[in-house]
């Protein structure tokens, strides 16, 4: 039996209780858990790149997991990934919107102003590591940091297309489904993102 059939059967059994439903439901839960375990770290890193904040990134990932399991778990498992990333991106956008509003309100209120350059800077970032980092690893970390900065400078749709296609490895159709746009738009956004990133990072990177 194909995985889809197994899952659908599990849900049918779940919705129409029968004496032998336990095994099918367990199989379905395992499938969902496997999917989330496989995707969660990359999703977190993508959210972190977009939001520049670890706690916010964890929050939006958790929220996306909850929404997926509550509302879309009965969908075929092939739809989970685009659905999950659509929920995640909506969460990221909502959070960014709230931040913008908060920033506007803060500028009108009296009191000490936030320094936008140090907004998400953690003081612990400035503490030197106890063990000296391996030069290669250090260079990789720096290159990734540069890439993240350039990604943040991109328009949201270009960043989204690049991360889904490149980091998550989605094909054009899946990315279009996740971004709720046409495949042509995905190709355009992705191509522009690659060129903009290369231009920003330079040939040396």
């Amino acid at each position, binding site marked *: 039996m194909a995985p889809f059939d197994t899952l659908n059967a599990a849900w049918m059994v779940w919705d129409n209780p029968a004496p032998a439903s336990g095994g099918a439901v367990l199989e379905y839960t395992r499938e*969902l858990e496997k999917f*989330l375990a496989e995707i*969660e*770290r990359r999703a977190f*890193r993508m959210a972190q790149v977009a939001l520049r904040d670890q706690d916010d990134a964890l929050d939006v990932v*958790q929220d996306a*997991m909850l929404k997926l399991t509550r509302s879309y778990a009965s969908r075929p498992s092939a739809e989970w990934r685009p659905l999950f990333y659509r929920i995640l991106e909506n969460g990221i956008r909502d959070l960014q919107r709230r931040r913008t509003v908060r920033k506007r309100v803060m500028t009108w209120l009296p009191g000490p102003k936030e320094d936008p350059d140090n907004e998400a800077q953690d003081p612990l970032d400035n503490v030197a590591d106890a063990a000296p980092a391996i030069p290669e690893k250090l260079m990789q970390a720096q290159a990734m940091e540069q890439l993240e900065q350039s990604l943040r400078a991109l328009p949201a749709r270009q960043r989204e297309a690049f991360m889904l296609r490149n980091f998550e490895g989605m094909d054009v159709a899946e990315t279009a489904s996740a971004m709720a746009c046409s495949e042509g738009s995905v190709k355009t956004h992705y191509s522009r993102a690659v060129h903009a990133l290369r231009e920003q990072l330079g040939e040396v990177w």
Partner: protein
Amino acid sequence: MSEQNDKAFEMRSRALFQDSVEGLDYAVRSRLTQARSAALEAAATRRPWALGWKRWTPAAGVTAAAILGVALWVGLPLHHQAGTLADAQSNFEDLDLLASSDEGSADALEMLQDDIDFYDFADNAANPGPAA
């Protein structure tokens, strides 16, 4: 040439991203595991509720229909129905009296006419009109 460079760039950026994912610290990985467990638990607790709701829907529908039916039959037209039945019963009793009269139906109708004349007289006596 440019396409090759694009490909190289894509591969490098993907590899860097993958390294950063694998390098996530224990605290973050632990919180992600907790988030996943919470999501699966929420889904598991939600499903029995939906299942129960689905299971009881037909029974609830039948019960609601039965209550509505009883209310329409017994509750709403109660006074109207009672009045109609009482009137109908009274009329049947009158007819029965007339029909079962020992003097026969012609005498009974004459008696009824006498009663009407008497009630007319009594009404005029109680409310005398202006003298002609």
